[in-house]
C-alpha cells in the first residue's frame, strides 16, 4: 500500500468541493483550505482562490518589508483541491533509474547529511500574466498582490541534490531527472541534470521552520532562479533518465504556444529574466499627500544578482538609480527604495532591473516584440497567454492621489 495515497477523508473533501461547484458557487467550500488553516491556526485569507482543480495563494507584496516573505504568506499554486497528509516518519525519497546505487532516504537520513541554507525567490511561470491584469475579484487584494504576488522569497534549508545524486552514482549518458510528488495529482516535472548538480536543494526547512504543508511538507525541491514548477513539492521519487519525459503537468499546464515560434510551444522555459515591481505606492493604495514619499519594491533575476535598479517617476522619460538594500543575493529578491517628493500632479512611476548577466528588464513594447506579437494583440479577448512575463510595471498616480495599473492602458 502506498503510504502517500490519498485517503477517504480526501475523497470526502473532494466530493464536497465538487458539490459546491455544481451548486453554482464557483468557489469551493472553505473545507478545501481547512487543512492548512487547521494546521497553522490561521483564518481564511484575502488573496486566495480555491477552485475544484487548483488552489492559489497570492503574496501580499505591498505589506511586508525586507526580502523574506513570511512563510504563511508565501505564494502557493496547488494543482488539486487538497493537500496531502504525509507522515514524515513514513516518507521516503528514492533515487533510481540510471544510477549505480538506487537509494532510499528517510527524513532522518536527509537531516544527517551536510546541509545548506540559501535565500532564493520562487515564482510561478504565470506570475504577472496579462490575463490577470484588471481582475475585478475584490477578494484577491491589491493588484500588486494578485498580479505579481505569485513570487516570494525564503531562506530554504536542506541537502544539496548533488550530494544525493553522488551517493546514488549517476551513469554517464544520463542527462535529465524526473521528480514526482506525493500529492493526489502526482505532480511530476523533468529537470536537466546539469542544473540539478549546480545549485538545487532538497529542502526541509523554510525560514527556520519545517516546510508548511502548502509548501510541500516534508520535503520539496528548490530550483533557484527557474520557474517554480521545477521545484516539485511533497518530493518522493527522483528517476534519473536520458531524455525529458514531458509529463502531463509540464506538457499541458506549463508550456505555451508562442507567436514567435509560429504557434509552437517550447518544451520548457527555464530561468526568469530580470524583473522588478514597485510594491508601494502601487495600484489600489492612495498617496498620503504632497511631499516626501518613499518608493519601495522588489527586484530579482533568475540569472543571478541584481546589479542595478532604476526608478522613473515620469512615465519612463528619465530614470534614476534606486538604492539596493543588503543583502543583495543571487536568485533572490532584492529590496530597493527611492526617495521622492510628490508634487500633487499626475505621475507614472515604474522600476527597471539590470542583472549581472547584463540583461535589462524589458518594456511591454520590447517584450511584445520578443514574443512576435503586435501591441494591439493585448486588447484582444481573451488576452494572449504569455508566461515569464517580466515587462516593466507602470503605476499611474492621479491628482487626487489614487493609483491605478496602466500597463495595458
Amino acid at each position, binding site marked *: 500500500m502506498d503510504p502517500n495515497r490519498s485517503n477517504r477523508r480526501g475523497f470526502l473533501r473532494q466530493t464536497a468541493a465538487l458539490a459546491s461547484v455544481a451548486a453554482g458557487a464557483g468557489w469551493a467550500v472553505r473545507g478545501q483550505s481547512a487543512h492548512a488553516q487547521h494546521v497553522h491556526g490561521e483564518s481564511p485569507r484575502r488573496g486566495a482562490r480555491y477552485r475544484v482543480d487548483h488552489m492559489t495563494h497570492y503574496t501580499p507584496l505591498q505589506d511586508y518589508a525586507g526580502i523574506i516573505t513570511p512563510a504563511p504568506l508565501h505564494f502557493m499554486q496547488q494543482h488539486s483541491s487538497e493537500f496531502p497528509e504525509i507522515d514524515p516518519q513514513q516518507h521516503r525519497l528514492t533515487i533510481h533509474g540510471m544510477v549505480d546505487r538506487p537509494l532510499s532516504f528517510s527524513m532522518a537520513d536527509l537531516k544527517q547529511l551536510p546541509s545548506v541554507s540559501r535565500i532564493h525567490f520562487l515564482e510561478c511561470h504565470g506570475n504577472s500574466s496579462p490575463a490577470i491584469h484588471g481582475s475585478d475579484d475584490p477578494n484577491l487584494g491589491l493588484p500588486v498582490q494578485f498580479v505579481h504576488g505569485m513570487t516570494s522569497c525564503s531562506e530554504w534549508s536542506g541537502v544539496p541534490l548533488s550530494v544525493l545524486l553522488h551517493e546514488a552514482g549517476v551513469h554517464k549518458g544520463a542527462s535529465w531527472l524526473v521528480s514526482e510528488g506525493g500529492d493526489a495529482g502526482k505532480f511530476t516535472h523533468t529537470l536537466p541534470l546539469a542544473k540539478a548538480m549546480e545549485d538545487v536543494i532538497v529542502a526541509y526547512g523554510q525560514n527556520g521552520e519545517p516546510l508548511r504543508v502548502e509548501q510541500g511538507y516534508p520535503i520539496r525541491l528548490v530550483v533557484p532562479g527557474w520557474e517554480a514548477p521545477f521545484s516539485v513539492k511533497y518530493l518522493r521519487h527522483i528517476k534519473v533518465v536520458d531524455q525529458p519525459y514531458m509529463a502531463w503537468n509540464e506538457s499541458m499546464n506549463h508550456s505555451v504556444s508562442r507567436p514567435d515560434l509560429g504557434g*509552437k510551444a517550447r518544451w520548457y522555459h527555464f530561468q526568469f529574466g530580470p524583473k522588478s515591481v514597485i510594491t508601494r505606492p502601487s495600484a489600489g493604495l492612495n498617496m498620503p499627500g504632497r511631499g516626501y514619499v518613499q518608493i519601495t519594491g522588489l527586484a530579482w533575476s533568475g540569472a543571478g544578482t541584481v546589479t542595478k535598479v532604476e526608478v522613473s517617476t515620469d512615465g519612463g522619460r528619465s530614470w534614476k538609480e534606486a538604492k539596493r538594500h543588503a543583502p543583495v543575493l543571487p536568485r533572490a529578491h532584492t529590496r530597493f527604495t527611492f526617495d521622492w517628493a510628490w508634487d500633487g500632479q499626475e505621475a507614472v512611476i515604474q522600476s527597471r532591473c539590470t542583472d549581472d548577466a547584463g540583461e535589462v528588464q524589458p518594456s511591454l513594447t520590447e517584450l511584445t516584440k520578443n514574443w512576435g506579437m503586435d501591441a494591439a494583440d493585448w486588447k484582444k479577448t481573451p488576452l494572449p497567454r504569455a508566461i515569464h512575463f517580466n515587462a516593466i510595471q507602470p503605476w499611474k498616480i492621479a491628482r487626487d492621489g489614487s493609483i491605478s495599473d496602466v500597463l495595458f492602458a
Partner: protein
Amino acid sequence: MSCSLRFLLPAMIAAIPVAALAQSPPRVYPNVGTPLSQADIQSFDRMIGPEGKELPSGRGTVKEGAEIFAKRCEVCHGKNGENGLMRSLVIGGPGKPYRGPFYGEERNGPSYYPHATIAWDYINRAMPPSNPGSLAPNDVYALVAFLYYWNGIIKENDVMDEKTLPKVVMPNRNGFVPAVPVYPPEKKPSWF
C-alpha cells in the same frame, strides 16, 4: 575516523561486487540511506517515458473505455469528456483530429500532448482524484483508447496495449520545439 570504520566496514564489504561494476565514484556517506532492490523499484516506478518502455502489459478498447469512463470519470469530466465540471477533454472529433492552433483552452485535452504515453501516465498515477492509482492497467489502456478515439487520434477498432500505444502519432507531435535556451545556456540572453 576510527569511530566510523565500525559502521563503514560492513558497507564497504557489501559494496565490493557493485563497486567493481560501478561507473561512478564511491559513496561519501555510505552509512546514510538504504539501498533499493529491483523489486522495491518496481513497486513504485510508474513514471512512463515517451517511448513507453515502462508500460505494464495490458490492453483496452474504445468500447471498454466508454464503460469505465461513464462509471469513474463522467462525474467530473461530463459525458464523453465534455460539458463537465472540468475543462473539456475533447477537441476535434472521431476521424477529425484537431491540429491547432493551441493558444488557449484548446490545450486542455490529449490532442495537445506531444507523446501518446502522457495521457496513460497521468491517468494511471493521478486519476481519479478520489483514489489515484486505483485503475488497473487494462482500465487505463481502455480509457486512453476511448479519449483518443473521440479526439480523432485513433480509429474505433484500434486496441491500445503496451506495444500499440507508444506508436500512436499525436496530432500535435511537431507542435513543440526544444527548450531554448538549452541548459547550460550557450549564449545570452539566457532567459528568453
